[in-house]
């Protein structure tokens, strides 16, 4: 990764995460923290982000700059039929995953639903089974996306790590919010792909 790549990716990674510091963005990009920290310094200097006490956000100017960069830097990606096809597949897996997150949180019963208190191992295992099957689909589809943008494999590592924690009984790692749960990482990946491909979220 060259430093000019990183000048772009650091701002992009921060935009995907919305707020954070060099460690979280380095983790998202799968690169080293020092290089990202240097890129943050240059981006702050250029007015593309602002930060205080280690937490940074993109400035409106930074967002506008990103919006100009995307169609240029990802022109090939956007014209790549295999990638856009993989993205359509990603959206279909996304629909299944959203339904899964809901089934994890609430259990349908008698025409209504109740909060899943995770007291029924059989029910939870059924959902974890589905998550495992969808994770395998995700591996294939993200693998195809990564042929065009290799850094996306970092998301697979993070998804695998969330899934592994779920298997170990850390129930928060399916759809928890303030942690790198499957849901958190998946949505960051979704946001990343939307930005790369110039799409908008359906919903």
């Amino acid at each position: 990764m060259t430093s000019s790549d990183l000048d772009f990716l650091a701002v992009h990674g921060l935009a995907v995460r919305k707020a954070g510091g060099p460690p979280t963005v380095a983790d998202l990009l799968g690169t080293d923290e020092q290089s990202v920290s240097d890129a943050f310094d240059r981006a702050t200097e250029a007015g593309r982000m602002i930060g205080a006490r280690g937490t940074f956000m993109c400035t409106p100017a930074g967002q506008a700059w990103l919006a100009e960069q995307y169609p240029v830097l990802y022109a090939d990606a956007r014209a790549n039929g295999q990638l856009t096809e993989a993205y359509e597949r990603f959206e279909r897996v996304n629909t299944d995953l959203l339904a899964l997150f809901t089934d994890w949180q609430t259990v349908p019963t008698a025409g209504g639903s109740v909060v899943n208190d995770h007291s029924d191992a059989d029910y939870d295992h059924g959902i974890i089974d589905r998550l495992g099957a969808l994770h395998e689909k995700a591996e294939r589809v993200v693998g195809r996306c990564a042929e065009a943008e290799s850094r996306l494999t970092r998301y697979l590592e993070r998804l695998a790590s969330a899934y592994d924690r779920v298997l170990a009984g850390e129930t928060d790692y399916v759809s928890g919010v303030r942690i790198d749960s499957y849901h958190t990482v998946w949505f960051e990946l979704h946001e990343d792909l939307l930005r790369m491909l110039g799409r908008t979220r359906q919903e």
Partner: protein
Amino acid sequence: MTNTGVTLTEARVVILDGTVLPSRELIGGKAWSVARMMSLGLRVPPAFVLPVSECRSYLDAGRSLDDEVWDAVQAGVANLEQRSGRRFGDPAAPLLVSVRSGAAVSMPGMMDTVLNLGITDEIELALAALTGDPAYASDTHARFLHQFGDIVLKADLDSYSAGVSAEAMRALVLADTGSDVPRAPLDQLRGAISAVFDSWDSSRAKAYRRHWGIADAGGTAVTIQMMVFGNLGEESGTGVLFSRNPLSGDRAPYGEWLPGGQGDDVVGGTHAVQDMITLQNAMPAVHHELMEWASTLEREHGEVQDIEFTLERGQLFLLQTRSAKRSPQAAVRIAVDLVDEGVIGIDEAVTRVTPEQIRSVMMPRLDPQHIDQHRVASGEPACPGVASGIGVVDPDEAERRAAEGESIVLVRPTTSPNDVHGMIAAVAVVTDLGGSTSHAAVVTRALGRPSVVGVGDGVAESLAGRLLTVDGASGHVYEGQMPLLETRVDDDPHLSRFAAWVAERSPLTVVESVPPDAQVLDLDRLGLGVGTESAAPTREQLITALRGAAVARGSLLSTAEGVAAAIEAGVSTIVAKPVLPVQLLAVRHAVAGAS
């Protein structure tokens, strides 16, 4: 009835017909529950099982089914044929089966179910004639091919959607895997059994076992069961019955069924279902039998049952039963009623309701009177709870104003990961678009924020700047600060009896306010509280802090860890509001220590 004789352990397959109840370790959880339902004298589709030991033999033989076990499987199929009057692969009277995995303990990562195995092109035509529904026959075939392709052949397919022909589905599987789904029913069966055994060694199953210290040397059983059809003309259908209402707790059984429906039609919610009264009117004898079964199953399990059934030409079949998921209100009522009915004892009843459920029951709720005229929006309820605050569209503004101490309701067209900080800062969330699986719904449920989604295009914008009360249980949004009613234990006869049982069993006293002249130790003031900057204190630290105190209070004393520490430190009284969830935590700690 129970027979676990020597012959069983030597048998290569075990016929399940109600005369034997082999151990769960031998035949796995799924087959065991089939055998248990049969042993109660209930009509369950005939089945046989390859015991767990066969998985070992298969894997040790280099992933191959030996001739002897394959002969035994064919004998099992012959037994199903004889009991059902149908034949595997015969279009004139087709026998279709389901194939399921099942280890002694439930475990994710193994092969899922394959349904309708045994279907062929000829049988599809025969089913079309038999049911008078060619679309159904084609769908059944395509579903089987999808399931077999997905699960057995590991094809990379999208999730199933109706409308793809069997031929096209077969081609999709072939194109992706290079393997054709077997056309001969026995080949399908052999493939599915092998896939179940193979799945014991799948990386996902291994990862799960590694985390939980379960030996790889075990195995899974394979259950093969006859499929029954709810769409074979008159007096057929499929449905779900709850032995009592799991949402209200009402004693009357609650059910839904779909005449002429099959499989997941009812559960999937895609068809208009009918209530139990229509079943009673149409087929009183069947209705009576179903009610008898529900009562038998409930007594046997000591808990409300969620029962799946199918009616095939006037004959009722029990497919599955499990303890029903109950709403918090119903959990209390049912626990008390089951005691009154002599089904369970009081000690058991107090373990049937969780402290979280009690907290939920005791949450303040809106006064249903005098609020309708203040309603300004309605949508889909996404996360229950009531909260009031000022409507704000911009998540950054929501975060900033919340940090200044304002109560904010985030109102947005839709939400994305870029809005999560605003959702965390808000007391409630309302969105224009999206349903119960939208990003907003998933995130607010994870955060426990009341939310209403799908109030309609442009509505959120109109709510900005107004004081709102959001009811995430009903899906309504009101203008203004709506008054809340506190839930008092004494207002509800079931809750007050439950509370008395819990109080009697609590190893320490819990009171709402500090007793006069008491010396109170306040954990929060010592910096040992929930949500403080530092890491949560260990149990040892808590016990040390609490030792010697007779009366204690603090946010951590509403948690299981905190209550356990208080009991172990010899605290006699906790000050907390409401008291009941804390008492229940104390009872649970005592029960866990005793067992």
